[in-house]
Structures are given as structure tokens and as C-alpha cells.
């Protein structure tokens, strides 16, 4: 039982990070029908920029509490990633808006190669460790432990998701985004500035990605120029699992994927009598994905997307 609870907690923490990144994929997809392959790399950039800022602050010996230093790093990362998301859309996607569908996919891959290698040139190939600024306290519930960092991650991502939902459902900008997602040309006729809506979508997605990147590097204590690839892949999987283009779907898919993954990793060994070890956890995630898509081809909550077509 305690394994179950522990893996459930770990899965929820991981899942809320996936969900944040998945939201970026799904928002862009909902509006542009484009798989923004560079999104994982934006997450990585968020983590790296935050770590660079934090590292510099620590090295300069500023007498600030650790939490504030981390928060400052997070703020800088958010700003940098917002600018990055905006630039990526301008440079790599906007000129190709009426091009064949696979063309922006290739530029997206190009952008992610560029970002990865830029990070490698700036920060090197080695792992960067997160300085021990946060005091980790562990609480035990029902035989499992949960740390304050884990609680913070879940709370922060939950509140960001709530904020996003409010933004999309309650504000003028959100209404413009929904209109654009439904039909770009008609939305344009109704006075929506399509280009600024699309830019805004990229900026919002990148902000979420930056926060997710910082959280994941704080959680594992590490960041690496290559970390965005697998994280992006998992988050994209999560977005598709929930039904790509659907915002609650991305949240559900992210949480589900995190939980499935950590439960899978925890149980696959004992279940198969040691035949398969925990390194099969990725297989688990993809296997569930294929199963879900075969049974429900438009993802768990994806109906609205197919209706709209």
C-alpha cells in the first residue's frame, strides 16, 4: 500500500510538470494545428537560464534567502522564455502559415536543434546541479513521504492551470483565442487581431514551459542541455493522450501519464516476476498511449476537436 501511495504522489508531482508543458503543446495545436516540436527545448532553456541566474547570484554572495534567489531565477527564466516563444513563432512559423503542413514541422525541428546546441555552447555538455538553496522538509502520510518541494510543485502548477483556464474563459484575450481556434478567418473578420493572438499563445505556452523547466530541475536537482527532448516528448504524449487541442485534456493527460509512469515503474518488476525492470517505464507510457488512441482515436477528451473540424 505504501508503495502505491508513494508512487501515486511521485506520479502526481511528475504529472503536474508534464501537464504544464503539455498545455503549451495543446494551446499551439488548438490554434495553429502545428506540433511545436521546439517546445521541449523552451522548457530546457527555462531551466538553464534559471540555473545560470541562480548560480550567478549564489556566486556573487548576495545575502538573500534561498527561496528568493530561486524565485528571481524563475522570473528571469519566465521573461527569457516568453521572449523566446515570441521570437520562435515570428521567425520559424509565421512565414510558413500557408505552406504545406509538414514545412513548419521541419522548421520546428530546426529550431529545437538550434536551441539545444546553443545551450550546449553556452553551458557545456555536463549536467548542471541545482544549488541546495531550498530547505527540503519531508512529511510522512500513510507510510509514504512527501516533501515541501513536491507540495509546492503541485500547488504552483495547479494555480497556474487555474489561472490559464480563467484567462481563456473569462478575459477578452481568452475569448479571442477561442475564436481564433475555431476559425481564424472569421475571427479576423470579427475584429480579432489573429497575429497578436497567436503570439500571445506562444508567450503563454512558453511561460508555462519555463516554470515547468525550473520545477523539474529543482525536483531532480539537475539540468542538462538535452533534458528538453524527453520532457517534451512525454508532454506531447500527454497532450495527445488527453486529446490534443483540448486544454482540460492536456491537464488530465499530463497527470495521467505521470501517474501511469510512476505506478508502472513501481509495479512492473514485481508484476512480471522480475522479468522486466523499472527501465521499462517509458514503454509503459507509450503503450498506454497507443492503447488509448486505438480505442479512442481522438484522445480522452478530444471530441470537441473532431466536432470542430
Amino acid at each position, binding site marked *: 500500500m505504501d508503495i502505491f501511495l508513494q508512487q501515486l504522489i511521485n506520479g502526481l508531482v511528475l504529472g503536474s510538470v508534464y501537464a504544464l508543458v503539455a498545455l503549451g503543446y495543446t494551446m499551439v495545436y488548438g490554434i495553429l494545428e502545428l*506540433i511545436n516540436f521546439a517546445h521541449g527545448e523552451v522548457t530546457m532553456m527555462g531551466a538553464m537560464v534559471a540555473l545560470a541566474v541562480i548560480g550567478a547570484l549564489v556566486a556573487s554572495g548576495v545575502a538573500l534567502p534561498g527561496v528568493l534567489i530561486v524565485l528571481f531565477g524563475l522570473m528571469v527564466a519566465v521573461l527569457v522564455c516568453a521572449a523566446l516563444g515570441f521570437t520562435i513563432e515570428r521567425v520559424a512559423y509565421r512565414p510558413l502559415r500557408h505552406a504545406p503542413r509538414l514545412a513548419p514541422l521541419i522548421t520546428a525541428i530546426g529550431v529545437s*536543434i538550434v536551441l539545444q546546441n546553443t545551450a550546449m555552447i553556452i553551458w557545456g555538455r555536463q549536467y548542471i546541479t541545482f544549488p541546495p538553496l531550498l530547505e527540503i522538509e519531508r512529511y510522512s502520510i500513510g507510510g509514504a513521504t512527501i516533501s515541501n518541494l513536491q507540495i509546492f510543485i503541485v500547488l504552483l502548477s495547479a494555480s497556474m492551470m487555474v489561472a490559464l483556464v480563467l484567462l481563456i474563459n473569462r478575459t477578452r484575450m481568452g475569448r479571442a483565442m477561442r475564436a481564433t481556434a475555431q476559425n481564424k478567418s472569421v475571427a479576423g473578420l470579427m475584429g480579432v487581431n489573429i497575429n497578436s493572438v497567436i503570439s500571445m499563445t506562444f508567450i503563454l505556452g512558453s511561460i508555462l514551459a519555463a516554470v515547468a523547466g525550473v520545477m523539474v530541475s529543482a525536483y531532480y536537482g539537475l539540468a542538462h542541455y538535452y533534458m528538453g527532448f524527453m520532457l517534451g516528448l512525454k508532454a506531447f504524449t500527454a497532450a495527445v493522450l488527453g486529446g490534443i487541442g483540448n486544454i482540460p485534456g492536456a491537464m488530465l493527460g499530463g497527470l495521467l501519464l505521470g501517474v501511469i509512469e510512476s505506478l508502472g515503474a513501481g509495479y512492473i518488476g514485481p508484476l512480471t516476476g522480475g522479468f522486466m525492470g523499472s527501465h521499462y517505464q517509458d514503454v509503459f507510457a507509450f503503450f498506454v498511449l497507443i492503447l488509448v488512441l486505438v480505442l479512442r482515436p481522438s484522445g480522452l477528451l478530444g471530441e470537441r476537436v473532431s466536432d470542430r*473540424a
Partner: protein
Amino acid sequence: MQAYLERLRHDRRAAWAAFIAIGILLAVLPFLADAGLGRSWVRILDFVLLYIMLALGLNIVVGYAGLLDLGYVAFYAVGAYVFALLSSPHFGIHLPFWMVLPMGAVAAGIFGVLLGAPTLRLRGDYLAIVTLGFGEIIRIFLNNLNTPVNITNGPQGINLIDPIAVGDFSLSQTHTLLGIQFPSTYGYYYFFLLLTLGIIFVSIRLQNSRIGRAWVAIREDEVAAAAMGINTRNIKLLAFAMGASFGGLSGGLFAGFQGFVSPESFNLMESIMILCMVVLGGMGNIVGVILGAVFLTVLPEALRYVGTLQQALFGQVYADPADLRMLIFGIAMILIMLYRPAGLVPSRRRRRELEAEADVADQERDSVYDTKR
């Protein structure tokens, strides 16, 4: 250029002259590369040919049938591992290559159907992510199937794979013919060239065949195609199987050529690169795909010289060329797509699509049965 091509189309003698010129160029290419750029470039030429075969295989799935496959490298892996397991000391089995290569291709084809069958209902991007997941699953299994029974030898991979050989004539040795030395990479070059020409021939014939037209019909409008009496299920599965078997064949060649396979060679990035070759060159156009494969294989190698270039220009090396070359590579990919969104050499049909009126294109985009979803 255009006028010359037009002349080739009508003038028999000019066509033969061009044909012979290309033939001679291909025959002496390894000598030119060796003399001009160094021995390592002959090896790169071998890889170029391998990637041309791979890209043409993927072109069947993506370019002809319009099924976006992001896990193509899985079939390459299947072919390579079939070859590796059946002709290496790992299991102590040493079957000759002419048995193992077709077995790899057939095995990959079967995997192609296995992947295709459950995903027939999926459209566009959903298909892409499922194929991507499939590719990752194959790789993870290859990585971990060393316990409890050692099948794939895990991350270490399989070593000492038998080279491609007929009797005592092995491609991994240096042969002397008419006083000219042919090192191993040359032998492989000619062998790969032969197979590549075979695959190009099959691709061309497929393009204008009944099946090829059925693929295009499915790509353009699946429902209309079905209404015209095309068995969309079988034709789609055929595209998967055929593309996969090309991949399996190249995988077997890769294993025999390298003498070593490990799961590392079959990661997602590899799949994406092959897809980039197809799209960058011009989907559905054989010349374009070949050009894309050549370009994306040669460019990263050529960019190894950025260190030398920096030395020459600035007198010192500022950035590590190994880091810089992939950066430039990424930028090149973006720029090519921005300036030639339909690929370097777009297929004629797709070019017509591109030139269609914007509102027609938008209408197609919004149609209910669009294949992209």
C-alpha cells in the same frame, strides 16, 4: 537548367549522353572523393547511399500515401538486429547475407503491418505520435532485452557482425582489380549503389502504378478514394509494409557494413532526420528525396570544417566545431524551409497544390474528411 531537362525529355541521344555521364560519375565518385577530400569521405558516401534507401522507403509512407510516420527508424532497427542476431558470434549463427538481408526486410515488413493494422483509423498527428511511440518502444526493448534471457545484449549492442560476403569474397577486405586497389569502403559503395539503384527503380515504377495512384488518392481524400473502389485498408497496410521493408533492408546493410549495432543508433532523432530528408527534399518526388538525403548527410560532415574555417578567417578557433556544426545545421534547415516550403524539388502534383488559390487551399484545409486529422 529547365531547358536542358526539357531537351532530355525529347532528345534520345542527349538523354543517353546524360545517362552515361551520370553512370561514369557514380562509378568514379569514390575515387574522386578519396583523392579530393580523403578516405573518410568514401565512408560518408556509403552512408549517403544508406540514407537514400531509407529516405526512399519513408517516402512511400509519407510522400506517396501521406501517412506521417515518426517511428520509421524502428524498421531500420529491426532489419539491423535481424542481420546482427543471425550472422554474428552472439548466438553463434552465421547465415549468409543473401539469406539474412531478405529476412530482415520481411521481418521489418511484418512489423510495419503490426504497426499499421491498429492505427488505420488514426489520422494525421495522432498517427504521428503513435508511430513515434512505437519507435521508442522498439528501442527500449532493444535496450533492455538482455535480462533475464540475453537476446539483444542490451545497451552494449552486438559486435563482430559478419561482413557482407559471398564465399571467400568479403566486402570488408581490400581487393585488387586490374591493378587498382579497392578498399572495403569502395566495395560497399558499389554494392550499396547497386541496391540504391534497384530501390530507385522500384520507387519510380511504384509511383505510376495502380498501387501508387491508389496511395495518392488516399493521401488526397480517403473517403473519395474508398468510394472509387480502393480498398483503403489493404492499400494503407501495403504502404506501411513496403516502406518498412525498405527500412529493414537498409538496416541489414547498416549492420553488415558497421559490424556493430546498438540501440543508440536507432533513436527518435534518427527518425526525425530521415523525415527531414523526405520533407526537405520534396515529399513524393524521388529526385527531391535523394537530394534531401544527400544534403542532410553531407552537410553535418562538411560542417566539421568550420573549425578549419575559423582558423583561416580569425586565426583562432572560437567555438568548438563539433558544437557549432549542428547549430549551423539547424539554422540551414530553418532557412531552406522558409525559402522553399515545398522542399528543394517539390513534386509536380504538390507544386500545383501550392499554387492553388488561397481560398481553395483553405477550403481543403477545413473539409470534414481532411486526411490531416
